């Protein structure tokens, strides 16, 4: 009972985080200064926060309701992104077998032709997805809301969920056992950098997680290095309204050197454009990876989550594809 109460109380301010209404300021000197902590680590108070949430993680009407609701929209995001970017024609497909992909906008074509092209393309997509067997990794999987959903998709071969909070992972495992369908799913208490770097994935997801880590760029880098060519990294997090620290943290030592101890009350939110800039800032990175889609989203109490016009405000989803 106490655990539950603590969880709800502890969740209070973070509800706002998810809503993107209030900027979460967090002192994270511990992670930065202590060498015993993982590079991609979560801070201790964050950890105990998530531990406390474990018992109520799967109550869809409980403290995680907003996350549960968000999952509907992000599954749409993942599904449609993968679907839209399927390669409809393998290289060297004979012209007569090729699915017609017009060079210009479909809207310009007469309706019957357009409909035929669309339905042909959709059938081809079903066919390709029907044969696909994708390997997925969910980083910071928490109680497994997204992890379970991925594991139920027919085109997913297997899913690994990793997290650094043992309690939420236990909650995830208990919940997994309640559904006999969840056989493609496996949880591990691990930091991403501790996964063998030769373990490559088609899909790596990091939802509502980057804003909790000390070195987001490091985590992202670890993720990008583990995605197969053609594969995807999907993330969601929250834009910050001011002070950029994402890139500066990357050069952590520099920053720590110039900022007097105790003054670095860091805002952990990461602007959408910062991730794009970060990828483009490095020629090797920008050759290999591309931000294919970024979409803002907002929570409307009576409705749930919906996409917005602007990925630069509030929460956003992002899809990064590995090109080479």
């Amino acid at each position, binding site marked *: *009972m106490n655990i539950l109460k603590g969880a709800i109380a502890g969740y209070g301010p973070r509800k706002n985080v998810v809503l993107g209404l209030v900027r979460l300021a967090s002192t994270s000197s511990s992670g930065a200064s202590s060498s015993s902590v993982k590079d991609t680590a979560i801070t201790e108070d964050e950890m105990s926060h998530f531990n406390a949430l474990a018992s109520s993680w799967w109550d869809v009407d409980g403290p995680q309701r907003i996350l549960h609701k968000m999952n509907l929209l992000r599954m749409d995001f993942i599904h449609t992104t993968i679907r839209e970017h399927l390669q409809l024609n393998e290289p060297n497909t004979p012209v007569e077998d090729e699915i017609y992909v017009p060079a210009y906008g479909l809207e310009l074509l007469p309706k019957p032709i357009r409909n035929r092209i669309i339905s042909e393309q959709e059938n081809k997509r079903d066919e390709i997805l029907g044969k696909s067997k994708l390997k997925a990794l969910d980083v910071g999987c928490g109680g497994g809301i997204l992890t379970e959903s991925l594991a139920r998709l027919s085109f997913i071969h297997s899913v690994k969920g990793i997290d650094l909070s043992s309690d939420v992972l236990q909650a995830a*495992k208990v919940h997994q056992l*309640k559904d006999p369908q969840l056989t493609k799913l496996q949880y591990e208490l691990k930091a991403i950098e501790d996964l063998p770097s030769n373990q490559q994935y088609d899909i790596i997801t990091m939802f509502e997680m980057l804003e909790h880590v000390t070195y987001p760029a490091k985590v992202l880098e670890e993720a990008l290095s583990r995605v197969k060519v053609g594969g995807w990294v999907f993330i969601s997090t929250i834009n910050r309204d001011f002070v950029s620290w994402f890139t500066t943290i990357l050069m952590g030592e520099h920053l720590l050197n110039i900022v007097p101890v105790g003054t670095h009350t860091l805002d952990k939110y990461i602007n959408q454009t910062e991730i794009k800039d970060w990828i483009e800032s490095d020629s090797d990175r920008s050759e290999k990876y591309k931000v294919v889609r970024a979409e803002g989203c907002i929570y409307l109490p009576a409705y749930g989550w919906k996409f917005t016009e602007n990925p630069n405000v509030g929460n956003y989803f992002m899809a990064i594809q590995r090109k080479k």
Partner: protein
Amino acid sequence: MLFKRLLATAAKSVQGPVLQDVVIIGGGPAGLSLLAALKSSSITRNLKCTLVEGSSLEGIREFADSPPEEYTNRVVSLTPKSVEFMQSKIGNWEFMNQDRIKFYNNIIAYDSQDRTSRIVFDGSAIEAGFLAVMAENVNIQSSLLQRISQLKEEGVDSTILDNTKVLSIGSALKEAEAASESTNIMSENVATASDWPIVNLSDGSSIQTRLLVGADGFNSPVRKYAGIQSRGWAYDRFGVVATVKLQYEDYRSIGWQRFLTTGPLAILPLTEDNATIVWSSTPELSEILIACDEQIFPELVNAAMTLDEVSLNFIYAKLKKNPNDFSVLDDIPWRQSRLKVNDLEENYPLPVTEVVPGSRARFPLKLSHADTYTSARIALVGDAAHTVHPLAGQGLNMGQGDVQALVEAIEKGVTRGMDIGSTLVLEPYTSNQWPGNHVLMGVCDKLHKIFSTDWYPIVFLRGFGMKNLNMLDFVKDMMIKNISGR
């Protein structure tokens, strides 16, 4: 450490009964439609589905190869929207016995207390090209069973258990909760126990299911298990149905409805010289309608379609004393003779000459609506969710709308990798379907109230309204919309 133990018990709890994704209770039109629709959708067809029906479906299976000569008495009118759903989504329409369905385009509604008031619905303006189509319940159910068999032949499997009653429904979670309540100790089982409903069947088996759908009619055991309230009231009225023969085939394809003070009487066209009647009446009158001789009944229908209320009451009174008082067979034509012949021919239905023996049945009319159609791992469709007055012939069509909306919600859930028993998946079904049904039920209820009274001011208004269609336009609009499902 605690969690280790929890894991062990949770693992145990998923063994035992047969596991399914969807169990549908009820093999009526709603339940069979849902099974066929789920199996027809490329997104949901891999779900493991079982349908349980308490009675035998043998008669329905036989209907495909050897339909009875006469029409059965459960005949419904389907809207273009329902037909479209059956054609394009469920795929059962092609299995309907096409010789036993009747498209019609016009409804003429008129009043027993005011000769001059009349509403004519002309369906030719409707996009679908027809206003409604009459079909037997058994024809619809048979076509659904055939569609389900066809899918099986194509490798899309499902199970139908008929002659199998649901004895009880429970869940491991409910048991664990009850146990912890009685011992006052928070049992750790509560955290791990599965909330999947377990359905215990009369053949001794049990099924544990991700989603339990109640398509189990008005008294829905599933609704009771879920603790969902259903609110409503019984009208002090009975519906009497019968299959009848007309003097000859009526090529006009008109549905006739006359508003009597005791309730509306409808004669709806079937193929050839057949027609079906639905007569909403007082308990007292309904008893007469069931008890009277097979020779008297057709004349009674003719009388109720043509004579004034005073004459009708005179005849009812005679029959109340003796349901086999054959003297009414002389009274009725004599009283009708006061009407002009060409008026009778043009403005009234063809005379009924016979009632098909054994086709008369009566049932109480009620209106009720469940507070919600969904809760965790539960969905209600069809009469389990709502029962309406048959005035506008909407019951079965509302069920088709439910099935369509529920399948859409489940499809979305599957595409998103959700647990389809979760309220996150099911809630949109309630929020899409419930408000529309509620409005429709309100309209049926109001129509009933407007049209079954003899309180003078209302009769006056009603007559006035019928003559001045502007005033009753809303009623007409509603009726057209309701009848054709637009």
